């Protein structure tokens, strides 16, 4: 049981987080756009998250918090 939280307003849509998730559950939310003009990253199927924090670790904008 793990949880990731995105501070979406900080996200710059760089996609780095999407490349490291072992569960492939981090994706870009192309439907939304934050106030900086970027599509933010988000997690689908949160229940698959193992809380490895890889996504957070690689995020250059410290967008992601991970709990486990």
């Amino acid at each position: 049981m793990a949880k990731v939280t995105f501070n979406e307003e900080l996200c710059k849509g760089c996609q780095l987080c999407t490349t490291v998730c072992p569960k492939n559950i981090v994706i870009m939310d192309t439907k939304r756009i934050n106030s900086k003009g970027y599509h933010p990253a988000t997690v689908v199927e949160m229940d698959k998250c193992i809380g490895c924090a890889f996504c957070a670790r690689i995020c250059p904008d410290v967008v992601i918090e991970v709990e486990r």
Partner: protein
Amino acid sequence: MTKVFERPKALTDKPFHYCPGCTHGIIHCLVAEVIDELGIREKTIGVAPVGCAVFAYEYFNCDMHEAAHGRAPAVATGIKRVHPDNVVFTYQGDGDLASIGIAEIVHAANRGEKITTIFVNNAIYGMTGGQMAPTSLLGQVTTTSPYGRNPDTEGHPIRVSEMLATVEGAAFIERVSVHDIKNINKAKRAIKKAFQVQLEGKGFAMVEVLSTCPTNWGMTPVESLKWIEENMIPYYPLGIKKEVD
């Protein structure tokens, strides 16, 4: 549930101004985590460069000094000599450290100045819009090497870590990368070590971090990580270049 990853205390709340996917942000985060883990935030004084990280003084949640371009090691020397019990670090780009500031880093290292240097090598001048750095790879196209870096006229990329490893005062020098999780973790260990070396008074410590500049490399952030792996690391071998007990 406990937090396994959260914003380090040694970072302020200020959002980074870096371009999307620029790994300066990752490196900031690593430095801040190390400061937190070592419990030295209250005695750390950071020196910001001139380069994309010029606003580092807004991000690191400790006392900060914004240096002139290339002179961070001299500024850090001034601070460290006044406060020998504090922890002083510089954060510098490759233009800042390897080009205009090469004299300052060589001599800080040679004096065995007890400071820690985080050297962000992204093979280009980010802030000024993509000029050639001394670390730009052969053939790399930049605004000032529009036909690709040519070794006959511009020389080969300089391996600063290997060069500084030759001076006696350097106590710890390692090159790391942040292009994947494994390497990010290694980078963190190296940075921690570089601060510990200072705390133990052993001498000068530097970590060279291979980093991206998606904007001026003209690549996506994801492609940029790959470019580090495929192009930079073969020329800039990772690992410890010097370690003194």
